[in-house]
């Protein structure tokens, strides 16, 4: 194998002097053993949340969105806040799998599989909200441009809300294809280790994969092009989500900074969710040698960078609103920070701008506990950000006589909890059915990232050994 030269200062990404077989064992066994009590406990909680969500969604569909506390002034509340929050979370998976692939960042390999799974489940949760917030979900297919008996009357292709529909459906489809294509060789590994019904099942999902050289060559080519397509796609998705706001004429929304600011925020919150999941996954499934402190630190650096970008964006918005000399714009931001929702603005600033700055300290970046708490903080902060943008802006519109206040009904809270339930139910099932770390990809980087080959414990000098043998 022709290795690209590895810098001696690169830290190993696979620890424990793994052999190829050991990698297969370590990564396959979680799907082969019976789940432990912790898994069942988590699954029960997730299913409970999911059930609450289903009840609240049924209520919403049955009675209409009157079940929510929206009013004439505030037409978007928790629904769209949650939509933007979930879609943003999804972005980290694509960033890890696609953008880091193009940048040849080897550390993506330990976390890409789980992060992509997270993307898919998060997009599912996100897509739920636009579907139910329209009120009459049974005619939601009117959004799709198909020849119909109403004229045919087409959807408005000039509307960002329709662009959003195309962006989200494309994003979901491409992420699913990318993820599944990566899973096929690993399903073949599980197939070849199993017998009976299990073998039949994995045979079905592994698509007849044999590991032929030509298949691998095409697989690599496919992954690279899909990564190349997914990279602008992921940037376009949150750009278009931000257009839902930025192309409107509401002061506070109508700003050109929204696309880059939304994309940075999406990556920021997505990495936080990846950290939340990885910190737990690596402990419960005993994968600390594959998802190492090196991985955690790298992701914390991304959180620090994107958190800082988001902070700069907040300050830029404030500056521009003052500098615009336009009183409605100035009022929108004054109201955000000091109006009736001051607490959400404060929460956002604390969680998104101030707390990530702790990651300048290497000690904190490499601390699992700090990482876990910070990831929860950032998740909360980014939820606040979307709430601040949506609710505080709408609550104080043009006519003071229409000003209003909004807090969610229990049904809205229930639906949010329900999406958490959907997300974690799917994630927990995923950890049982597929290797959470990409098996073939870890083997592929072993010789350039294994701790027996690089780093201070290295004792193998593989190429020279081979030369002596042959």
């Amino acid at each position, binding site marked *: 194998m022709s290795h690209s030269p590895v810098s001696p200062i690169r830290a190993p990404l696979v620890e424990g002097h793994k*052999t*190829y077989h050991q990698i*297969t064992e370590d990564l396959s066994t979680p799907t082969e053993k019976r789940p432990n009590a912790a898994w069942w406990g988590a699954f029960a909680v997730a299913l409970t949340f999911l059930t609450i969500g289903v009840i609240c969604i049924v209520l919403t569909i049955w009675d209409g969105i009157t079940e929510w506390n929206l009013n004439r002034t505030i037409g978007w509340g928790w629904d769209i806040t949650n939509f933007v929050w979930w879609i943003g979370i999804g972005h980290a998976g694509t960033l890890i799998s696609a953008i880091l692939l193009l940048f040849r960042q080897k550390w993506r390999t330990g976390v890409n599989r789980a992060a992509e799974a997270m993307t898919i489940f998060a997009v599912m949760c996100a897509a739920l909200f636009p579907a139910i917030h329209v009120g009459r979900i049974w005619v939601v297919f009117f959004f799709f441009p198909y020849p119909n008996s109403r004229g045919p009357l087409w959807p408005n292709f*000039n*509307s960002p809300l329709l662009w959003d529909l195309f962006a989200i459906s494309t994003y979901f489809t491409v992420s699913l294809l990318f993820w599944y294509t990566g899973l096929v060789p690993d399903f073949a590994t599980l197939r070849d280790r199993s017998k009976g019904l299990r073998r039949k099942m994995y*045979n079905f999902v592994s698509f007849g*994969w044999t590991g032929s050289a030509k298949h691998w060559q095409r697989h690599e080519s496919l992954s690279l092009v899909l990564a190349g397509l997914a990279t602008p796609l992921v940037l376009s998705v949150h750009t278009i989500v931000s257009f839902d706001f930025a192309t409107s004429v509401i002061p506070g929304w109508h700003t050109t900074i929204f696309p880059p600011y939304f994309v940075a925020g999406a990556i920021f919150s997505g990495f936080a969710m990846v950290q939340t999941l990885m910190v737990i996954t690596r402990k419960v499934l005993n994968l600390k040698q594959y998802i190492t402190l090196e991985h955690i630190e790298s992701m914390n650096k991304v959180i620090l960078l994107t958190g800082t970008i988001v902070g700069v964006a907040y300050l830029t918005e404030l500056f521009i609103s003052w500098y615009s000399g336009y009183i409605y714009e100035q009022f929108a931001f004054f109201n955000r920070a000091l109006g009736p929702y001051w607490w959400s603005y404060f929460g956002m600033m604390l969680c998104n701008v101030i707390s990530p700055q702790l990651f300048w300290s290497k000690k904190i970046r490499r601390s699992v506990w700090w990482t876990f708490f910070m990831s929860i903080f950032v998740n909360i902060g980014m939820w606040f950000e979307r709430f601040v943008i949506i609710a505080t802006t709408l609550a104080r519109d043009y006519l003071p006589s229409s000003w209003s206040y909004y807090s969610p009904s229990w049904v809205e809270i229930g639906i949010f909890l329900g999406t958490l339930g959907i997300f974690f139910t799917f994630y927990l099932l995923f950890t049982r059915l597929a290797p959470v770390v990409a098996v073939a990809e870890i083997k592929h980087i072993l010789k350039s990232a294994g701790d027996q080959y690089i780093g201070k414990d290295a004792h193998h000098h*593989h*190429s020279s050994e081979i030369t002596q043998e042959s």
Partner: protein
Amino acid sequence: MANHKDVLFGLYSDEEVLLKAVKKAKAAHLDIMDVFTPFPVHGLDEALDLKESRLHIVGFIFGLIGSLTAFLGMTWIFTDDWPIIIGGKPYWSVPAFIPITFELTVLFASIGMVVVFYVIGGLGPGVTNPTLDDRITDDKFCIAFDQHGMSDKDIDKVKSFLKDSGAEEIHTKTI
């Protein structure tokens, strides 16, 4: 299966040994049927003289179809089929068509490439392709030869090549 093949194969446990063996086999003009590995081995496609994959061209063609479908579709709908003035903009408001054109380009290219990838490789849901050894998806690297049309002398030549080039196990299997 109508066409049974008698396959002679050697299993290696290191990809660098495998790669050297493949190069040696090519130099000795041995006719390799296929090489199977648990993960992509870089340099293997060149050693086997595999032509560069043309999947990216497939992606480009499907992407182009996607772009044209979206752009021409919206153009036809908004200028001819049902023209509506929206926000005082012209019927043919090109900048507003760009996001959907981009999304459909990516969608068509991705679906097209993935479907073509599986179809030309003979892969798909529920497909069972014969495998030589269960450890090939774990930690073994395999060079396979089709025994069809080989004399006993040829077979011995291949076996000794496998042995000399570092194969740890040599088997035959009918698939």
